[in-house]
């Protein structure tokens, strides 16, 4: 089976398993509705904190409220996409610990697809909805000359941002083959990264921005391409074409995460738990 065949097989298995989990979730309908409403409230409060900040100041690190909302919306929506589709992989460690990963390894489907769809949590849609709403507000409130390129860049940012976060999730899952209790470490990069990106790069120290640009390239989720849309100076004085690098960065991240995953699975299969 070639790589393309494996991808098709994986997506098919993913769809089947995620479907089962959605039906399992809907077996407790009231509980599901309550968790989604609760999720919307909690993530909503998250943005309220930013609103409160702006009731005291007019700009944050040189960015106005609609501009920060733009960064926030991009970060939250991309993260929401990744978290909804592949966030479950972050629970791999517990499956390794209790030995139930073995039950996935005897099925005729790629393990990553099974792990990604494992306990597919539809409630995570709350983050996605909230992110989209904030992005919608920014879209209306921003004073930007929306050229066709800028308009096209928004969906590109969301898709590539989602892929970059997904790569971080997969790499984190791969690490859990070796260190089963590393889900907290992974959370620091995924949830932590998402929160970081909600604020302008100008409020952080250069070292941190450098790390988030060149080491773990989360800056390409929104900071760099959004600088082009907003007509702001680029962080670290990056060249202008960097705003259009997200697709390349996303592909590179996915390739690295893919190798890490394969290495992790190989380690597991040669050592057991």
């Amino acid at each position, binding site marked *: 089976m070639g790589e393309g065949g494996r991808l098709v097989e994986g997506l098919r298995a993913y769809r089947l398993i995620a479907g089962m989990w959605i039906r399992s979730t809907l077996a407790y309908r009231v509980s599901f509705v309550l968790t989604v409403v609760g999720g919307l409230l909690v993530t909503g409060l998250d943005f309220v904190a930013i609103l409160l900040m702006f009731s005291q100041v007019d700009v944050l690190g040189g960015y106005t409220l609609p501009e920060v909302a733009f960064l926030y919306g991009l970060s939250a929506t991309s993260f929401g996409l990744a978290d909804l589709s592949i966030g479950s992989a972050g629970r791999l460690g517990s499956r390794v610990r209790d030995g139930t990963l073995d*039950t996935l390894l005897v099925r005729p489907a790629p393990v990553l697809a099974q792990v990604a769809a494992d306990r597919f949590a539809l409630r995570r849609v709350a983050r996605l909805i909230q992110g989209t709403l904030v992005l919608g507000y920014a879209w209306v409130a921003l004073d930007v000359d929306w050229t066709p390129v800028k308009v096209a860049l928004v969906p590109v940012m969301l898709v590539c941002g989602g892929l970059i976060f997904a790569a971080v999730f997969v790499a984190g899952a791969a690490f859990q083959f070796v260190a089963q209790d590393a889900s907290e470490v992974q959370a620091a990069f995924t949830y932590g990264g998402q929160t970081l990106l909600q604020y302008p790069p100008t409020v952080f120290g250069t070292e941190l921005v450098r790390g988030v640009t060149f080491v773990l390239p989360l800056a390409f989720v929104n900071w760099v391409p959004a600088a082009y849309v907003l007509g702001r100076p680029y962080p670290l004085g990056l060249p202008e074409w960097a705003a259009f690098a997200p697709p390349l960065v996303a592909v590179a991240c996915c390739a690295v995460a893919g190798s890490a995953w394969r290495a992790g699975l190989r380690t597991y299969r040669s*050592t057991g738990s």
Partner: protein
Amino acid sequence: MSEGATVPESAFIEVDRVEKVFDVRRRTGFLQRELRRVRAVDAISFTVARGEMVGYIGPNGAGKSTTIKMLTGILTPSGGRLRVAGIDPSRERTRLAHRIGVVFGQRTTLWWDLPLIDSYRLMHRMYRIPDGRYRENLDRLVELLDLSALLEVPVRQLSLGQRMRGDIAAALLHDPEVLYLDEPTIGLDVVSKARVREFLRELNTERGTTVLLTTHDLQDIEQLCSRVMVIDHGRLVYDGALAGLHEAGESERTLVVDLERELPPVEVGEAARVVKVDGPRQWLAFPASESAAPLVARIAAEYPLVDLSVREPDIEAVIARMYQDRETARETVVQAPGNS
């Protein structure tokens, strides 16, 4: 691909000097780790013919599950050659998956919150079982395993025995040629155990499915398997009929008698020896190959007997004995040159 066709029928599962070495890191201090090599499976060789039903037994940590995991493609062997239906399990895990069925006794693969039938529908699609064959297999399994009343019940509401039957059906919907069962009767009541065993016997004789099962229950082996393999400390220490195992382990059964009052140890000569006395209750060990009837008759005639029960030897005890014997034999050999 052509390899599958050339495998002789006599060797459906081929295991040739297969070993599995783990590096175990043990925490010895706050940051210090000690690295230890553990041979979980040590150069094991055996073949299983198509249609055989084999019991695979051994104490906990002997290497049973590691072997099963290598046979199912979960683990990659560290050395040796392994083929199941001509397929190298660790290299072609997904291709093999279509041809094997696996039941992990204590880990259900059924969907907890959904009706049982939903798990089967998933298998139907995941294994791409043709509709007609799926219907046919489902109907047959539902009838044989008595599942018709359970199909619409969420799995979380099933009893342990019902769930095990459900799991076995799930593992067989795609017509696997070999079925691996890890402790299929663990925790089941007598009726459920009997039903599972009867089903497995039928599966093996009617459909010729090769069955490899690990168990702690000697009765599973007695009632199902013509052949038993014993693994201990990663080595295959016995491969043959169950009767021979009793012999090899010189196993003993235990007769527990309750007397009317506290008495000195029962005297029955060579037939049995008292191993423990606790008030009016006494434990007598006698050879597993002997019938308990004459012994019971004799005690009942000579002593005020109130109640009794016979306990079968457990696998751990049989193997412990075998192992002891081997150790003693080895020591004798080692000492021999020194004495001469």
